[in-house]
Structure formats: C-alpha cells, structure tokens
C-alpha cells in the first residue's frame, strides 16, 4: 500500500513537468515580440519592446526559457499574472480555497441527493418514482452546465432575487478585510464560524447555492444511476431476504442492511467526481462570477496571460494527480478486498 502511494507520488513531478513543458512549448508559437508586448501596459512604451525581449530573454531557446520558469516555480515564484494583477502564487492562494469550498459543498449535495434518489428509485423499481428519477438522471447528464447555470440565474436571481451571483456581498467584503476578522484557513465558511460571524457565514452560503446546484447536475445524474443499480443488486441478495424473514421493518432492511453495502461503489465514484468537478468549476465560476481558481484560469486564458495560464495548469495537474490518488486510497479503505499495486 505504502509502496503504491509512493510510486504514484513519483508520477506527480513527471506529470507536472510534462504538462508545464508542453504548454510552455506552445507559448513559443507566439513571437517574442508578442510575448514581450504582454508586459507592456501603455501603448506609448511600445518602443521598449526590444528591451523587454532582452531583459526576459524571450529569444533564448525553449529549454533555457523553460529552465528559468522552472527554477522560479521551484522557489515558489510563478511570475506575475497580468489578468489578476497580482503574483500568480498569491492569486492561487487567494482563489483556490473558494473553489475547494464550492466543490465540497457541491459534493455534499451530490452524495446526499444522489444516494437518496438512487435508493428510492431502486426500492420503487418501475413505479413512477423510479421513472422520474431515471428521467432526471438521463436529462441531467445531457444538460450542459452553462445552459443550466443561465436558466437558474434567470429564475433565482432575475425573477426571485434569492441568490445573487459573485462570491459574497459588499458588506461581507468589508467585514472580511477588516482587521477584526481573522483568516484562519482561507475557507470563508470555516473562518466565519471561527470568528463567530454568522452573518458572513450565511452570506457566503447564499452565494454558494446556485453555483453548487449547477455544478452538481452531471455528477448527481451519475450518482443516481450507480446507486440505483448497486441497490438493486443488493436487494436481490439472500441476506436481505433473511433480514425480511426475521421480521425487520422495511426501512431497517433498506437503510441498515442493503444500503450500507450498496454505498461502496458510490464512495469511490464520489472521489472521482470530486476531481471532475474541479474541471466544471471553470464554467460555473465564469457564469456566476464566483471568485475561484476556475474564473482565474479562464480570465488568464482569455487575456493570454501566460504566467497565469502556466500557474493555473500546473496547479490543476497537481490537484488532479493527488485527487486521483486519494480516491484510489479511499477505495481500499472502504472495500478491504481490493489491494493496490498488486
């Protein structure tokens, strides 16, 4: 087990190097003049183009330039992001917690409703509840999140005014940047509780509802499907018949016996889905103007902010590898029959 984890962790630098080098190689398609002009804000300073190319060595061969970027990255210096107007490392530190928070809240929604719908669907097989759950699941899997996001925004913000876009309201912005508010973890939901500030907590939660609902749709659909088929399989087994025969009430049979076994595949799936959600945040954060890492990545890409793009991709790749590893480990923890790396 430990050997497996170590071997997988060895893959991490390989992936990080591979991804960043590939992207860096792509940036070389842009001429040195174009890349230099990204450093210049004022058009009147365009005369300094040659100076900038010289200063940053933009004409050196790709390996030399990549080496420079890499040695900076190893020291924690990922360059300056023009699109976010701050160093890339600082941008990641500032935006990442909001995204992780969004993904976690979404995951809670996905697992809770996915398991619930899945169980009901299996228990009421071929009744209307089952058909409804399956329709929602097939539909949810095909509904693009940017379409759902806009529709939810139209209804819950435009019409009803319940859930505004953005990460928090202006008054919260003032509160969290005031000296009396301590940032312990960077996660606003946790920090607000630690500060004993319920108003901030509710405000942040209120801004999380729509993005989380939008983000959960695809994973939710998958979760219902897996839970349903897993539950159907368990309900057909002998121990369920035994439990029923000895007179256990039906809900005990369903939740305490069959449900406990049926949930195993769901837990693994949850691990994998959590990683997938990080990809989806790119769109959701853009629609709801949510101040997370996905929106940062999109803005960097739109404005061709190379340092921002490189930092963003590096971070996503690292998160992805770690997340996959975590879900593998979780798998063995839930189902001891599975041994990794053998």
């Amino acid at each position, binding site marked *: 087990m430990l050997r497996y984890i170590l071997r997988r962790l060895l*893959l991490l630098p*390989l*992936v990080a190097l*591979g*991804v960043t080098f*590939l*992207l860096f190689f*792509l*940036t070389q*398609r*842009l001429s040195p003049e174009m890349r230099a002009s990204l450093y210049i804000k004022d058009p009147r300073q365009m005369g300094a183009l040659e100076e900038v190319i010289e200063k940053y060595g933009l004409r050196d061969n790709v390996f030399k330039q990549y080496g420079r970027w890499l040695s900076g990255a190893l020291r924690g210096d990922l360059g300056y992001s023009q699109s976010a107007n701050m160093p890339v490392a600082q941008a990641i530190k500032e935006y990442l917690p909001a995204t992780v928070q969004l993904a976690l809240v979404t995951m809670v929604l996905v697992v809770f409703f996915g398991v619930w719908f899945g169980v009901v669907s299996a228990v009421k097989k071929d009744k209307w509840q089952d058909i409804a759950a399956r329709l929602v699941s*097939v*539909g949810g*899997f*095909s*509904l*693009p999140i*940017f*379409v759902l996001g*806009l*529709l939810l*925004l*139209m209804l819950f*913000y*435009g*019409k009803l005014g319940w859930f505004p876009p953005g990460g928090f309201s202006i008054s919260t912005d003032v509160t969290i940047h005031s000296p009396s508010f301590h940032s312990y973890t960077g996660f606003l939901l946790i920090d607000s509780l630690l500060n004993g500030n319920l108003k901030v907590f509710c405000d942040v939660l209120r801004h999380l509802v729509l993005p989380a609902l939008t983000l959960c749709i695809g994973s939710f659909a998958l979760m219902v499907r897996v839970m349903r*088929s897993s539950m*159907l399989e368990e309900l057909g087994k002998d121990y369920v018949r035994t439990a029923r025969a000895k007179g256990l009430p039906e809900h005990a049979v369903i939740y305490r016996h069959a449900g406990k076994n049926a949930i195993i595949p769901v837990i693994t799936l949850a691990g994998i889905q959590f*990683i*997938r959600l*990080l*990809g*989806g945040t*790119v*769109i959701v954060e*853009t*629609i709801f103007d949510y101040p997370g890492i996905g929106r940062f*990545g*999109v803005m*960097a*890409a*739109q404005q*061709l902010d190379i340092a921002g*793009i490189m930092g*963003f*991709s590096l971070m*996503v*790749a690292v998160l*992805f*590898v770690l997340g996959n590893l975590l879900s593998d480990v979780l798998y063995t923890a839930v189902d001891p029959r599975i041994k990794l790396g053998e």
Partner: protein
Amino acid sequence: MNNRIFKRILQNKASLAGFVLVALFALVALLAPVLAPVHNPHDPYQLPQSSYSMTPQPPSAEHIFGTTEQQYDLYYGVVWGTRLAFKIGITVTFFAFLIGLFLGAAAAYFGGMIDELIMRFTDVVFAVPSLVLAMVIAAMLGPDTHNMMIALTAVAWPSYARLVRGDILSVKQRDFVTASRALGARGPRLLLKHILPNSIYPSVVVASLDIGYIVLTAASLSFLGLGAQPGTADWGQLIAMARNWVLGSSTNTFAYWYTVVVPGGVIFLFVLGWNLLGDGFRDILDPRQG
C-alpha cells in the same frame, strides 16, 4: 452481426429515441443549405445580421426563433450550427482516433521502452481535465473554430490510445495470431492484416459515440470565448451572446428567454441523443451491466 445490433438498438425505447434524435440532427445538418439558404457564399457559417441593434428580438414571422444581440438570426444559427457541430464532432473524433490508433498500436506492438514512453506521455495528457487543457491550448493557438478543433483533438486522443493498446494486447494472445505467425506473417503485415482488423471494431464504436461529448466540450469552449468567434453559427457562441440578457428587461425577467432556451435546448437534445444511443450500445456490448 451489425444488423443484429441495429435491431436491438431499435427495440429499446431509450436507444430508439436516441437514434431518432441523432438521425434528425444529421438530416438538418445535411439539408442546411435548403433549410436556411446561404447568404454569404464565402463562409456559410457566418450568421446573417439584419441590423446592429443590441437588443434581442423575440420570435417573429421573419425570424422564427428570434434574434440574439446584434440581430444575428437564431434559426440560421441553429441550422448551420448543427452542421458545424457534426463537422467539429466528426473531424475531431476522426483525427483523435487516428492519433490514438497510431500511438496505441505502436505501444502495444513494440512494447518495452516505446510502450512505457508512449503510455507515460498519455498519462501526462490525461492528468489535466480535458476542458481545462483544451481551453489553455485554444488560448495559446488563438481562438477560432479551426484552432478549437486542434485543441479538442489534442486532448481527446489519449483515451483511444489506451483503448486500442488494450485491445491489441488481448488480440495478440489469440490463437489465430500465433497461427499466422507460424505461417510466416511478420512485422507490419501481421499487425495490419491480422491484429488490427480484429481489434479495432469496439474502439471505433466507442470513439464515434464520443461525438456528443466532443460537441459539448466545443460548445463550452465557445461559450468561454475560446472557440468560435462572435458571428459564427456555433451553438456555444449563440449561448455566450445570451449571457448579457438572462436578467431580462426592467419589466419582465423572462423577456429574452429565447436567447438561452433555443440554442440551449438544441445542445441538450443533441447531447441527449448521443448519450441515449451510447447507453444502448454499452448495454449490447457489455450484457453484464443491467
């Protein structure tokens, strides 16, 4: 055998619905010049624009689906967008599969170092969510429809490389390969004439069913402004133009509903069709899953 699979697809209600949806879209794509006559012969995917006014117009006799901001006709966008969707889906899947086939076959056939090298490279591309990687590549290449297809191809091939490699490795063990080797078949001939034709079929099916997913990713890229440019008959682009209007007018929140619902509904139905069809195929190819 193909006939039998086809029959089973038609017997299942869900996969039949999927088949009908996909067939309808294919028909619209083929008949696009008839359904919506081309107005710009140099670029049929360029949307007709009746004026430069910003406010979208509701469905009318002249514009049956209404217009987006800057008066791009939604009907034209939906019809030619269908054709563009197929063009993107088929082109990307074809080239991604070709790359996957080449690399996967090379990895499985040569084994050893080459296998290791190719598969680790595959791991690297796999290690980033495909939308994120495609987004970054499209940004670097410069956003337009053509570069979007390159970016999508660049992120789509690894799964086919793995698939093809696995299939070839299992076919390689079969008796008929040993037999042809014993008869003197060697090298590329063995791979091309004996192994490939017998291992490629399932991968081709899987790849072609990915068209819905590819089109969805393409629409996402266009939506983010990193794919097709404004004025292109592209579904994602049409929805991107709806973003400024989701909150409606001061009197009616739903005043511009059609700017979201028309292109959004079309993408939904397209992806739904492919998903239903894909489910049907998976049930047939893998009868253990109920």
